[in-house]
């Protein structure tokens, strides 16, 4: 009974502490909310919204070999006007004078002057300059255009190398260069280069097709990429702040020592086991309340689907035990509240980062980093929550939950042993 009295008193104090409440509930939701506002819509239908850049293009280049021949200038214009570019660039073809004059005015943000005889010079390996005139303000669209032009020029350089190599090969074999081979090779190189660029942009190599395994049947509603990233971010934030609360609640033992109330408690007919037990119950109860509030509010605010009930329960319990364990363990080394602030912040930030809590929204991290994650209880908790978010069953989550739980139990046992020794 006294254990519950002690725990209730601590709960009362915790929930009266405005700063504590902010760190327990408001901070994780606020940070997740900010991330949601910043990136949450990336995976949606509308995608990333970038203002459209107006481009005036003056293409002075002429095809080589008559109207049917190839034109490097036209290839560049085609590249800028291809499907998909309209999201970033609004391209208008015009003459050079108009293009130059329109920059900085209402007509255009940037002008692109493709010089005359570009194709001819390119095939001949001579220098030619494509002119890009930017307005006062620089925008993402301008940078995109600059990138495309640079990439295109790189392609031309590559094409020149190709033709040089072919010419050299013919010469080494003592053969005469057939007419049109150079142009044909350049065109083929340009097509290949463009195709490679498209492939890199889409992330779907044409030579490799990855077929994802059919997902296990679950109650998981369809979530787009943005929602999945958001769910990972919220899970990471929840783990970070639950561990923070675990440690800061454990700090109440040090606080009571400084307030003199711990010594006073030891003068009452209450055993040391009951007093420490009450403190630990308070930590667990606080974390339970925090996790429930975070799960429900993130569901309501961000629409996050927290997996199956069994898996959710397993991971919640194991995470709470791990957070309480780490908190008690860290606090058992701390002598006073002046130490606890920096130590708490340092230990939880470092172990949180190592555990991958800060990089939940980043895809394709190195495999070694994923291994490092598992050297911390937070890393195991994150792994478990990722299973939960993927809609895995309780059985599938059990192993990870048990490892997370084991982390908590071991840290808790060592922490309690050290604390009992201190107050003996």
């Amino acid at each position, binding site marked *: 009974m006294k254990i519950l*009295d002690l725990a209730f008193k601590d709960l009362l*104090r915790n929930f*009266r*502490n405005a700063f504590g409440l902010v760190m327990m509930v408001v901070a994780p939701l606020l940070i997740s909310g900010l991330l949601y506002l910043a990136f949450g819509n990336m995976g949606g239908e509308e995608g990333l919204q970038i203002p459209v850049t107006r481009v005036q293009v003056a293409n002075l280049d002429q095809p080589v070999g008559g109207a049917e021949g190839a034109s490097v200038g036209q290839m560049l214009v085609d590249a800028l006007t291809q499907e998909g570019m309209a999201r970033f660039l609004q391209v208008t073809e015009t003459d050079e004078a108009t293009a130059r004059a329109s920059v900085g005015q209402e007509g255009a943000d940037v002008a692109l002057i493709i010089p005359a005889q570009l194709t001819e010079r390119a095939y001949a390996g001579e220098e030619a300059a494509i002119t890009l005139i930017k307005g006062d303000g620089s925008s993402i669209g301008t940078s995109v255009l600059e990138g495309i032009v640079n990439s295109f020029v790189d392609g031309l350089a590559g094409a020149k190398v190709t033709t040089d190599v072919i010419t050299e090969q013919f010469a080494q074999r003592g053969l005469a260069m057939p007419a049109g081979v150079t142009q044909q090779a350049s065109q083929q190189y340009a097509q290949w280069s463009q195709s490679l660029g498209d492939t890199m942009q889409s992330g779907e190599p044409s030579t490799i097709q990855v077929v994802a395994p059919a997902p296990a049947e679950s109650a998981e509603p369809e979530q787009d990429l943005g929602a999945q990233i958001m769910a990972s971010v919220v899970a990471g934030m929840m783990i970070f702040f639950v561990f923070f609360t675990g440690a800061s609640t454990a700090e109440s033992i040090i606080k009571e020592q400084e307030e003199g*109330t711990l*010594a*006073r408690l*030891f*003068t009452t*007919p209450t055993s040391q086991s009951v007093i420490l037990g009450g403190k630990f119950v308070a930590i667990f109860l606080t974390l339970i309340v925090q996790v429930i509030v975070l799960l429900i509010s993130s569901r309501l605010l961000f629409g996050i689907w927290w997996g199956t009930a069994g898996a959710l329960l397993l991971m919640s319990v194991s995470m709470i035990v791990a957070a309480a364990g780490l908190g008690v363990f860290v606090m058992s080394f701390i002598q006073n509240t002046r130490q606890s602030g920096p130590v708490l912040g340092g230990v939880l930030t470092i172990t949180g980062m190592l555990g991958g809590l800060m990089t939940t929204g980043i895809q394709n991290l190195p495999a070694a980093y994923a291994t490092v994650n598992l050297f911390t209880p937070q890393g195991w908790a994150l792994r478990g929550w990722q299973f939960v978010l993927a809609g895995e069953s309780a059985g599938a989550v059990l192993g990870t939950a048990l490892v997370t739980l084991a982390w908590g139990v071991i840290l808790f046992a060592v922490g309690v042993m050290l604390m009992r020794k201190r107050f003996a």
Partner: protein
Amino acid sequence: MTNQPAISVQNLHKDFGEIQAVQGVSFDVQDGEIFSLLGPNGAGKTTTISMLSCLLAPTSGDALIKGHSIIREQMDVKRAIGVVPQELALYPDLSARENLLFWGKMYGLRGKELDQRTNEVLDLIGLVDRQKGAVTKFSGGMKRRLNIGIALLHRPQVIYMDEPTVGIDPQSRRSILDSVKELNRQGMTVLYTTHYMEEAQELSDHIAIMDHGQVIAYGTHDELIEIVGEADRIDLTINTESERILETWRTMPGVEQITAEDGRLTLLVNDSNTVLPALFESSNRAGVRITSVQIQEPNLESVFLHLTGRALRD
């Protein structure tokens, strides 16, 4: 059992590494009396109280509280005592009532009894009107009173009060001293530590004077005063720091002891009526001017000075 002292301290020792904080302290406190441990800061009073509260384990020796050993029967001892710590030990973010209810539960009170005792104690310490206010907003005196009230909740047979008047205003101090007397009148045995001579003198049936971890004198107020005999105490200040005049006075007939501290001289003399004119005469001859003089009857301060050669305020 009836003649057994409420507190019997037997050759108590406490070492902290090389430091011997308490060195063989022994005394008895009879049922229903107020007993003071008087001594300067660092004398070992709080360490002694901590051992008697079962907070610190003695290095050697033992004490019986209402017949229970502080080493072997700690829970019985804790049930018998109420402790008022020197530093405030309250939950500042809880109200006065919430503090009392919580501590009452820690002493095993429940239900109606807890509620009733909480109301009684709130009344006793004069915080009925402020019972719902957060302790953090209380004045120093109110916090001190609540600090005492907590120790009274379970009607302890013995109450330890460790310097309960440190750092509070005279009005609150008066209120605390009166409440100590009232508790004693109701039959409670009080072990009181202080470095204020006047408090020990006003409250105590018996006094143990402590210095450097030892009891250097023990008895009733009158018994202790007898230690210094008929000596008067003269406090005086002079206009210059003159070692020569001190040397003259030390050899003067009737002067038993002289201490100098912060420009203030304290002399223990056989008869102030005969010694004082001689002091003025010799100071005149030496060109030293006496700027203030105060003559006091022998008191506990004089006893401490007599026994240690130092003032109690050290």
